[in-house]
Each structure stands twice: as structure tokens, then as C-alpha cells.
């Protein structure tokens, strides 16, 4: 089927989307330098900056979370492709308010390569940067390096951003981010493909009656292709895998995020979330905080990501701290 998207052409896709994004949130963000997304009002001097990078086409991820209490600068790449090291370096210089910069990287080959190169260049310049790689997709297997970074970036941005905002040092911010990341697990399921907006090609194929658990953010193949199940069956299956991997016990507090991939309706996401709540109550696990919505998408892909994170009182406090970004507000 031919691609049906409201675009003007593949060449200027990213710059046009960034322009519109910035114009629609003029009080929160602005475009700076070489298409970097930065806070409209920079953070006070002496506080740690938080920077991230990632391909475009996943809106509102990742630049939708630039603003007070979360990210200072985001470096958007081309469609589904990491930005290069030179722009990341520019972002780090921009975010450095004298207390160093925390660089949050989602574990995807291109992003990691760019980030490593950026760290080399930053060190040459004597910049104070620490890097954290998020890898919480349990479909990657037991080796952490094979686990991709999915929606688990959100709590990491949130707690690290809150810590930075209250004036924690770079080492403290890194420790908090790492603690959050270690306690987060995500699993994705896909039911329909997305079209790559620049090539107009579907990024994977799935049978009409099939779903695939473990599908990546770009349609990278997962491992569990099966006949389509109901919302409850799918939620149970995925939640069981997540709880087992994180080794969650009765009495613990969880943050749960159900993230729509782009074409799956809020109606469906709520039905899934409701089942998660039921199963957790039954097991005596507390759903301390929850979020349902689209935080990172893949065009019109159908499916969702289910994320769980073990929370302690400190992480809950940082999660609840105020933030004001285009697509995540806590007041």
C-alpha cells in the first residue's frame, strides 16, 4: 500500500518537524545552533546539565522532554538515525552550566557509537561529562549490552533531571540515574508495521492475525511471534516476564508506564493498564505510580511498550518533583 502521510518530501522532514515543534511550545523550548532542542530559559548556573541524543520519527521522544526538571538539551538525529558526535558535543557545551553534564544514551548501536565518539571529543576539550546508557528491554536476552533502551529513558530523565534541578552534583545525579536504570525493565509488543517516512517502505511485516513480543523501536525483530491475543492475555504474558526479570516481590512499589507505539489507541492502552493493576493487586505488589500515553512512538506502528520500575521513597520523591516540558508536566 502506498504511504499516506502529510509530509512535503523526505529531504526536509526533520527540520520541518523541529520547526513546528519549537513554534508550538515557544515558552518551553527553542531551537539553538545546529538544530539542537534546548530549554527556552536555561537552567541556573552551577547546576548539572542533562543531555540526550536520538533519531527522529519517534515524537514526542526524545525532545518532547526538554524543559525545567528534565532535559536541558536534546540532539535529534535524522529519521530513526542517531545524530553525529559533532552536534552532541555542541549540545554538551551548551548544557554545561559549570557543574558538568550528564549524557543519557539509549542503547542502540548508532546512538552508542555517536556517544562514545562524543565522550572522546569532550574529554579532549576537558569538559566534565558522565555518560549513562539505558538498556532495559528484556527481549535482548540476559546480556545487558544486548538490551535496547526503550521507554525506560523517561524515569531516568525524570529523576536525574529532578536531582540536577535541586542542585545535586554530577556524581550524585549519575548515581541516581544509574539506580533508576538498574531497576527498570521494558517489553514491547507490535501488531502492525510503521512506514519509514523517508523511504515510504514498511519497516517490517506481520501477518494479519499475528503479534510480536520483543519488537524494537524501529521494527527490529523480536523473538516472540504469535497469534494475536486479547488485551488481558497480552498484558498478563508481558507483565509476568517483566516481574520475573526484575525479580519483584510482594510489598514492593512499582512505577508502571504503558507507552503507545503510535497507532494503538488510548482505549486499548487503558484496558491493558487496568489489567496490569489487577494482576499487581492480586500479587500484593503496589502500583505506586503509573503513566499511560505516547512518550516514544514509531510513526503509525501498532503496539505498545510496558515498563515497570522498582521505586524507593527517594525515587518516588524525584519522580513527583515538578517539571515543565512539552510532553511531560508535573506541577
Amino acid at each position, binding site marked *: 500500500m502506498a504511504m499516506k502521510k502529510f509530509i512535503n518530501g523526505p529531504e526536509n522532514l526533520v527540520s520541518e518537524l523541529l520547526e513546528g515543534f519549537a513554534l508550538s511550545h515557544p515558552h518551553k523550548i527553542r531551537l539553538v545552533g545546529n538544530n539542537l532542542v534546548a530549554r527556552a530559559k536555561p537552567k541556573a548556573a552551577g547546576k548539572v546539565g542533562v543531555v540526550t541524543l536520538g*533519531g527522529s520519527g519517534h515524537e514526542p521522544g526524545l525532545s518532547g522532554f526538554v524543559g525545567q526538571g528534565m532535559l536541558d538539551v536534546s540532539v535529534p538525529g*535524522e529519521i530513526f538515525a542517531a545524530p553525529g558526535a559533532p552536534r552532541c558535543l555542541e549540545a554538551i557545551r551548551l548544557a554545561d552550566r559549570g557543574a558538568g553534564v550528564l549524557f543519557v544514551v539509549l542503547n542502540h548501536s548508532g546512538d552508542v557509537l555517536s556517544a562514545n565518539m562524543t565522550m572522546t571529543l569532550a574529554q579532549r576539550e576537558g569538559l566534565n561529562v558522565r555518560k549513562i546508557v539505558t538498556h532495559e528491554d528484556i527481549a535482548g536476552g540476559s546480556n545487558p549490552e544486548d538490551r535496547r533502551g526503550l521507554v525506560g529513558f523517561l524515569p531516568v530523565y525524570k529523576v536525574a533531571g529532578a536531582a540536577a534541578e535541586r542542585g545535586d552534583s554530577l556524581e550524585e545525579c549519575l548515581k541516581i540515574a544509574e539506580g533508576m536504570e538498574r531497576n527498570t525493565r521494558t517489553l514491547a509488543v507490535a501488531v502492525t508495521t510503521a512506514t*519509514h517516512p523517508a523511504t515510504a517502505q514498511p519497516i517490517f511485516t506481520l501477518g494479519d492475525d499475528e503479534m510480536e513480543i520483543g519488537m524494537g523501536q524501529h521494527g527490529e525483530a523480536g523473538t516472540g511471534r504469535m497469534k494475536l491475543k486479547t488485551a488481558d492475555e497480552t498484558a498478563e504474558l508481558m507483565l509476568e516476564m517483566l516481574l520475573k526479570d526484575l525479580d519483584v516481590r510482594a510489598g514492593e512499589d512499582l512505577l508502571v508506564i504503558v507507552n503507545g507505539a503510535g497507532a494503538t489507541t488510548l482505549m486499548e492502552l487503558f484496558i491493558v493498564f487496568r489489567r496490569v493493576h489487577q494482576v499487581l493487586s492480586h500479587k500484593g505488589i503496589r502500583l505506586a505510580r503509573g503513566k499511560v500515553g505516547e512518550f516514544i512512538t514509531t510513526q503509525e506502528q501498532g503496539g505498545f511498550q510496558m515498563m515497570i520500575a522498582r521505586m524507593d521513597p527517594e525515587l518516588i520523591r524525584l519522580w513527583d518533583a515538578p517539571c515543565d516540558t512539552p510532553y511531560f508536566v508535573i506541577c
Partner: protein
Amino acid sequence: MMQAAARLIREQQGRLSQLDSVAGDGDHGSTMMRIMRSLEAAFNSDMPIELRKCFCDAGWKVMNSDGGASSSLLGAFFLGLGEGAREQAWWWDCTELADAFEAGLRAIQAQTRAKIGDKTLMDALAPAIEALRTAANAGQSVDDALHTAAEAAQVGAKTTETMIAHYGRARLLGEKTLGHQDAGAASVALMFQGFSQAIAETKGNAAHARW
């Protein structure tokens, strides 16, 4: 030479994206076009160019073309190649060519642990550079060296059909990647083919070829 390489990549853009769609998101062709435009821009001069400066500039431009893993790796390669080249050189003899390309290979190896056999661009790049060194040691001309390097890259790219991916997004597909060439290796083979063709067109007068 960059123009000839860019022409081949442009002609094969569709095939490269097709190869990438087996395990990736099917945009390798357009990514490579951005990379080749960056390379062409760095070498776009009718005047003789200082190769060290040009390759460093090219590496930086490629890295900045936002082409994900490909632009980080190829950017590191050309930057390393430039940094490894002799200063004030406007043309390389065969040994200098091999020295520079080997420096590029080391730079890319500092960024990725992918080895020969992992079904990545390394499967085309490493044999091509090895061929350059062998040709240099045998006292061959730059024409012949680039010709054998292009052949080695092509054979290397072809062998990726029989491999299972161990790196990048493709590794998650495992055996499903069998029977398909790695898109990155195919691109590297095309680049070397372009270099070799451009040199051949100078009919034995390699020093007249423009990078």
C-alpha cells in the same frame, strides 16, 4: 574518486536500502547518500588538495551527517585516515596509501569491536586494506593496488551472505540474516569500486586522478 564512489552508491541506493530492510529499518541507501554528499563536499575542489586536511574535514562532515552507526563509523574512518596521513601530501604513493588507510582502520576499530566474520562493514573494509598493504609491499602501482582492494572488498561483502549477524540491530535476527549481504559491507565495496574505476579512467596516470 569520491565522485565515482558517490555515483555508484547513488545507482545502488535502492538495493542498499533493500539489504538494510532485512534486519534494519531500510534506510541505508539514503543514509549513504548523505554520507557521500558530505565526502564530495570535502573533496570538491579543482585545485590540488592537501590530503591530510581534506580527509580530516571529510571525517568530520561524515560524522555530522546524522547517519546513525554508518556515519559514526565511516566518519571515524576518514578522520583516522586523515590523521594518519603524511602532512603536506597532495598525492600518495602506494605505501602512503596503505599507511593512511590502515590508520583509518585502526580508528574504526577503536569505535567498534566488530571483527571479520561478524557481518558488518568490517568484512569488506579489512580485506580491502589488507590488499592495499600487500600491493604496497609488492611494489605495485596505486592503480593495481586499488583494483585488488576493490576486488577484495567485493569478495568480502559477498561472503557476508553466508554469515549470521553479531553486531548492530541485525544481531537480534540471528539466522534470519543468512543469505543476505550486509548493507554496510556492500556500501564499502561500492566505494572501493568507485575509487578503482576513477583511477582506471586516468589510464595509468594515477597522479592525475582527483580524490
